[in-house]
């Protein structure tokens, strides 16, 4: 019985040692947010072109060097411009893109509120 108990304890300890196949998860997440510039409508993660494969190697290299996700985006933005990012930041070229929906939403809300107040 004691041997059986020990066996179960060892078995349980061994099963805690799970192996996950997510070693590249950080790299995958970053490459999904980078546009493959020579492909049409594909991210670096999706593409298997020469350019995308080199980008993947470089992202790995930068991660090894200890750069954070944000720093890697900034690095690529400096080289290739905003277009390489799928989620461009707020700057003078994109402010309309970001602000127009909010403005229209507020304006619509104001019209609705006004018509309700007017009705009352």
């Amino acid at each position: 019985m004691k041997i059986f108990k020990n066996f179960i304890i060892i078995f349980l300890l061994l099963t805690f040692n799970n192996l996950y196949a997510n070693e590249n998860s950080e790299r995958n997440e970053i490459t999904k947010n980078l546009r493959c510039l020579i492909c049409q409508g594909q991210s670096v993660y999706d593409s298997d072109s020469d350019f995308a494969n080199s980008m993947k190697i470089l992202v790995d290299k930068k991660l090894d060097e200890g750069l954070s996700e944000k720093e890697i985006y900034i690095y690529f933005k400096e080289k290739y411009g905003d277009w390489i990012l799928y989620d461009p930041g707020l700057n003078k070229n994109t402010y309309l893109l970001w602000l127009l929906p909010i403005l229209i939403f507020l304006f619509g809300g104001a019209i609705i509120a006004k018509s309700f107040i007017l009705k009352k």
Partner: protein
Amino acid sequence: MKQKLIPYSITLIFFIIFAVFFKSLKDTNIYTPKTKINDDIPIFSADLLFLNENSTTTEIFELDKFYLLNIWASWCIPCRDEHPILMSLSKNNKLTLIGMNYKDNKKNAKSFLDELGNPYEKIIVDNNGTNSIEWGAFGVPETFIIYNNKIIKKYIGPLNQELLTEIQKTIK
């Protein structure tokens, strides 16, 4: 006054939307990279082809001199087309040509240069394509003009006679 506000604002919104769409109507939706840049050259070390040595970009590119960095490969057909232009540029003593051998093997690169001539003073090896990404390149062939450790011009695709005269004007 209040009743007039709504039609006025609707017209205003339509006008804004119209202006936005009208503006983007004229924009090209094909990505065109900037060709006039003033970026610092990337700093990295790389192996040199045929020389069995390692060099850094600061060693290769000296100040106050014009350099032309050309990314090429023996398997790239447009590189073959632009090669005569690089050969004629290499005769200009104001300009030093540096090659970057992109995803190529030594043997093919050597026979390519033996056949068409070697215009480069030094050739950087780029086996996995990461060096060219450091330069902000898209593929082969691509050409950069460098002065004082800054990239002053960038040509994507093969050089032609027109660009040759442009480069000669730049380095004068």
